[in-house]
Every structure is written in C-alpha cells, then in structure tokens.
C-alpha cells in the first residue's frame, strides 16, 4: 500500500497555481526541474494550465490513474478534497496545510474529521502539517529542497526545518545522500512504524535516520524497529526532553513527548542508535550505513601528531571503548616502516613518518587492521591535506593511500573512520575516501562518536539473538497491553 504512495508514478497537485510564491506553483516547478519520472496533473478549476501543463478542474476529472495527491490548499478544504481523492481511487495524499491538532481543540476536531474521511474514502494521509516528501529514486520532490544528494539513507522527520538541516548538511559536506525523505507532520494517519516497515524492505535504503518529537503508537514502532535493526540501522534523535522543549514540541506538532528515560531505554532495547546532539545525527547514520560494525569494542588510533591522538584517546575512553595493545607482530611491522621516534603502541603516532610519503598511511592501516585485537580503525590528523599543506607532489601518494584505505574496509570487514583537518577542502584524497564511503570529518568529537556508534551497534547485533523471548512475548501479549 505504502509502495504506491512513496513510489507514486503519478501525482496530482491540488491547488496548482500560476503565482510563483505559491506552493502549488513551486511544487510543479520543482518536479519539472528535478525531472520527476512520473506524470504530473495540476488541479485548479480557475486555471487552464500551469507551467505549460494542462490543468484539471478537479482530481476526479483526470482521465488517467493517479497514485498520489499533493494537497496545498488550506485546512478547511481538506475533507471535501479527500472524498474526491477516494472517488478517484488515489492511494494517498500529502497534506501540507497546518491548522490541525497543533492549534488546540478546534484543530483537533478538524484533524479527526480528516482522518475519518480518509478512512472512509480509502485514502492514506502523509501529514497534515508536513513539508512533504521526496523520493530520490524517481526524483519525486514534493518539498522544494534543491540539490538533495541521492544515497542510501532514508530520512523520517517530524520537522521540516530539521529535514532541511540534515539534507543541507549532506549537500555541503558532500556526504552520502538519501533514498527518501518523509515528513510525517502530525502523524494523523500513516504512522512511524508503517514507514519503518516499508523502508526495511526497500533494498536501496541502507540506514534510517529519524527526528522524532513524539509518536502516537510507540509499541508498534518498537516492534517494527526491533525487526528493522536486525537488518539495517536506525539512528534517532528525540527532541522535547526538557520541560521547555516539551512545550515547544507541543505547540509544534501537538504530539506527545514522553519521559526521555523511558524512551531512551525503549529505543535502545530495540537496537536503535539514540543520538542526543543533533550534529551527530547525520554523520552517525552515514557511518552505520557504510561501515561494518565493530564486534569487540576495541579500536586502534593512527595519528600523524600527538594532539589529535591524545584527544581522540580521551574521547574513545569516555565512550567506554578499549584501545587494545597491539601484538608484537603488529608493532614489529610498524617499526619496520616508521621512524624511530614513532609510537607503535596504540595510539600509533607516525611521528613524521608520512611527511615525505603519505602512502605509508595505507601501509600502517593495513598492518593495524590485520591485528586480531583491533576491531576498527580511527585515523586522525592531516590526511588528505599533505598535498595542500606540504607539497603538491604529495597528493599522488596520498591518493594512492586513499584508494587502498577505501578498499581495505571490505577486505578486512573492519570499519575505518577518518578525522581530517582538511575534510572541508574536499581534496582528491578526501573525495576518494568518500567515494569508498569512508566517513571523513573535521570534527574529532563527531569522528569518535561515529566509532562509538559502530561499537554500540556491533554489541547489539551480537546480543539480540539471545533475547528472542522478547519478541515472542511481544507478539503474544501485545493485544493485552493495549
């Protein structure tokens, strides 16, 4: 059912307009510009055509099949329009208008009427009070955010601004992009857990990124989340944990904000990676979607300078991650290629050993990842900037290293995450690392958080098998639980 909506092959824009400041104009313009693969049907009884596409008086007057309707008209017009959508056998409607539950009693009543009408008409609703949705595969952009990058992350978001933030971040930092963006809005009809079930089965979605202010069917969500995280990671930020935050969440989507202790325990139990700082949301999702998890909570640091190594070790230790001793073999191999001043204990500090040949980074990484004690590798420092900072000629061995580091993850089935001061310079070596989906950040804090999330997810994947009772009980007793 959701497939027909989220992968719609035809969209009607109810409220199509010739006025460029109107959503009903912008939506069509975006679909055209982005090259939406499906059909577009503008609907407006007062216009003949919009942006060169003939207009229909109503959705029922469209002579072809319509999968999805984007409704851009005000709240009070919705119930009547949904009835028409039902007659036309439209699978779903994206309702942009606000003015429902989030505005108090009257709005609540209108929302109830909308849900009721939708049910009677057999139309499922995304929203209301949503910025829309995007299907990156078919270029069905019903939001208007420009240049969203395509990739393996599905974004489920309860705030249009947060969606814009996350998509912009992916764009600016040239990280991986998205399969879908779904703005759940007031979650009046289609629920979080239904989106989750759909995305679990979407082969292009590698990880699911969620910003949640409150959800109405927490138990069903947890059940679907439990099933999902076995297959792909879910990364989630729940806002509204402070009293004031709650007030703001209340007035924003009128959703319920539960106790954060309960929520965090529940999400964690279902294998969800819970994030508290919004900066970490996208990087962690990208890391979990691209890197194998860490099975033994043991990480090695490879550095080309003491400061970053020290801070990195502090941060990993704060996360409870072990920095294992490297085996004698590993140390001997490192000693053979590094200068005498280098530190070959963990953190490994090349001590200038890469200054004239940054390709040695890849050699070191290879030696370290072969060590059976090491579950994953954190590279910190200047990698990717040798060609910028020291001599242009160094860019070539640096690119060589990037290629080899990029391929190493699959070969060894151990993750690599890179901190580089030159991350935002987007040098060739950095771009190559990104080509191989290696996370690269200029923030040590975020890089370490990415490593921590790989350890945590690895721990979860090891342990959940032992807890099948949980699911069994769940299904068995869920009805009684109400």
């Amino acid at each position, binding site marked *: 059912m959701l497939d027909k909506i989220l992968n719609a092959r035809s969209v009607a824009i109810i409220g199509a307009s010739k006025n460029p400041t109107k959503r009903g104009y912008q939506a069509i313009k975006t679909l055209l510009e982005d090259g939406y693969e499906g059909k577009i049907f503008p609907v407006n009884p007062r216009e003949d055509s919009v942006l060169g596409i003939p207009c229909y008086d109503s959705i029922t007057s469209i002579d072809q099949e319509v999968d999805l309707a984007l409704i851009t008209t005000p709240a009070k017009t919705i119930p009547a329009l949904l009835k028409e959508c039902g007659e036309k056998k439209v699978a779903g409607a994206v309702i942009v208008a606000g003015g429902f539950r989030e505005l108090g009693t009257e709005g609540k009543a209108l929302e109830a009427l909308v849900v009721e009408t939708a049910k009677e008409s057999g139309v499922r609703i995304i929203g209301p009070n949503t910025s829309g949705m995007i299907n990156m595969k078919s270029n069905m952009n019903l939001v208007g955010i420009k240049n969203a990058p395509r990739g393996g992350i599905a974004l489920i978001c309860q705030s249009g601004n947060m969606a814009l933030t996350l998509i912009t971040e992916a764009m600016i930092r040239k990280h991986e992009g998205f399969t879908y963006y779904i703005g759940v809005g007031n979650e009046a009809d289609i629920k979080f857990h239904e989106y989750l079930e759909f995305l679990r089965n979407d082969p292009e979605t590698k990880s699911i990124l969620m910003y949640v202010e409150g959800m109405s069917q927490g138990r069903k969500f947890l059940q679907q989340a439990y099933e999902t995280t076995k297959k792909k990671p879910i990364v989630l930020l729940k806002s509204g944990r402070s009293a004031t935050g709650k007030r703001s969440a209340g007035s924003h989507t009128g959703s319920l904000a539960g106790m954060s202790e309960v929520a965090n325990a529940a999400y964690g139990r279902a294998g969800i990676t819970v994030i508290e700082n919004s900066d970490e949301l996208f990087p962690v999702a990208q890391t979990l979607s691209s890197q194998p998890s860490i099975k033994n909570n043991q990480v090695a640091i490879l550095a080309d300078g003491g400061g970053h190594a020290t801070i990195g070790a502090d941060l990993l230790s704060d996360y409870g991650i072990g920095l294992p001793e490297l085996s004698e073999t590993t140390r001997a191999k490192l000693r053979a290629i590094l200068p005498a001043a280098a530190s070959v204990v963990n953190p490994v500090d090349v001590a200038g050993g890469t200054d004239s040949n940054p390709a040695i980074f890849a050699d070191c990484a290879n030696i370290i990842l072969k060590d059976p004690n090491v579950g994953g590798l954190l590279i910190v420092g200047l990698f990717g900037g040798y060609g910028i900072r020291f001599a242009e000629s160094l860019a070539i061995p640096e690119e060589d290293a990037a290629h080899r580091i990029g391929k190493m993850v699959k070969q060894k089935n151990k993750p690599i995450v890179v901190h580089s001061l030159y991350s935002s310079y987007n040098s060739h070596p950095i771009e190559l690392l990104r080509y191989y989906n290696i996370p690269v950040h200029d923030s040590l804090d975020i890089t370490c958080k990415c490593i921590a999330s790989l350890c945590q997810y690895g721990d979860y994947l090891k342990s959940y098998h032992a807890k099948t009772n949980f699911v069994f*009980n769940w299904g068995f007793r869920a009805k009684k639980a109400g």
Partner: protein
Amino acid sequence: MEIIQTALEEGLPALSEHQSKKVLEAFGIPTTRETLVHGCKEAVVTAETMGYPVVLKACAAHLMHKSEKNCVRLNLTGPDQVRDAYDSIMDSIDVEIDGILVQEAIHGQRELIMGMTRDPQFGACIMLGMGGIATEIFKDSVFRVAPFDRGEATDMARELKAAAMLGRFRGQARADMDTICNCLMALAAIALDHPEISEIDINPLIIDPQGKVTAVDALVVLGNR
C-alpha cells in the same frame, strides 16, 4: 482478580498495602508475612505466632503516605510494645481504616525500588531503582518497556550505577538475582494482564544480609487510562 474488581466497583483510587501485596504475591513476588487484625488482642496473638520483631501499620486504600501520617510502628519486640503501638496508632488515626497490619520486621542495609508506570507513548514500563539515597539523591534507576525476558531483567540490574551493591557488599551476601528478575518480570506480567492498574510501587524491596529479597511496602494504583 477479585480484589481489584471490588476496589474498582467501590471507586477506590488504589489498593491498600495489604491488598496490593496480595496482587504481587499472586504473580510470585515475595512479600512480608503479615496479617490484617481488628483488635489489640488479635494483634498481640498474631505477633506471638509470627515471632518478634514485628511492625504495625494502619491499613487502608486511601493511606498512601503512611509514615508521614504517623501510623507505622517499627521493630516491636514484645507483647507490651505491640499493645502500645496498636493503641497509639488507633489514637492518632482519624479516618476509617481496614484494620491494622501486623507484619514481620525485615532488616537489611540494601533496598531496591521497583515500579510500573504507563508511558503515553510506549505503554507499560517497569522501573528498577537502588533504594535509599541512591534513588533519592543520585536518581539511580533504570526503565524497560514491558514485557521482557530474564536476560533483559538482568541487564536492568546491571545498568544500575550501584549495581555493585547487589554483589557481595560490606560483608553481606550477593542479592538473590533470580528473584529480583522474577519480580521485574512479574510486574510486567501484572501490567499486561491488568490494564485497569495504572501504576505500581514497591518501596522498599529489602535485601537482607543473606541476599534474600522481600517486598516490604507496596502500592497498586487503579485507573484505566
């Protein structure tokens, strides 16, 4: 359960301590040996049979903060003390009560708090806390959405900051983890079987020096959300 049904029919907001413990017992949670008595003589006879020391408490559904209302007498070691305690409780009480509870006195330096609450998003949740100042001052508590299995219950205890206190601690034996896990799972079962119960508190659940655990006070709050 009949107790709950009756209380609901009478429109009571909660069960009394004694009734609450009967519900917990039915699900296998170990509670204090106790008898509800209705006269001073009966109190003494009960205490003699039970063995000293005992505790006397006024018992009624509407007595939610007993010690503040001056209707608890601890550590009574003989018939005279029981008599005095009985009379002084009866004197200080000005509301209708079900009777006086004569209860075995349980001693232990370690105590836990357990509870059930219904979260608006996730439904029944079970809480485990290290009692005393650990909960009061350091907010040392752990939550789980119900139901869960033994492994999960064990994890809850492990996640307490004061988890070390459940091991061998200051010359006392390891706490009986099997029973602690049973209690947590039992609370989950009660929550799922009885939607008409909105909250449960077990406070304290005392761990004696041998590691045995006993629910010493309990409260079951009614009200179907």
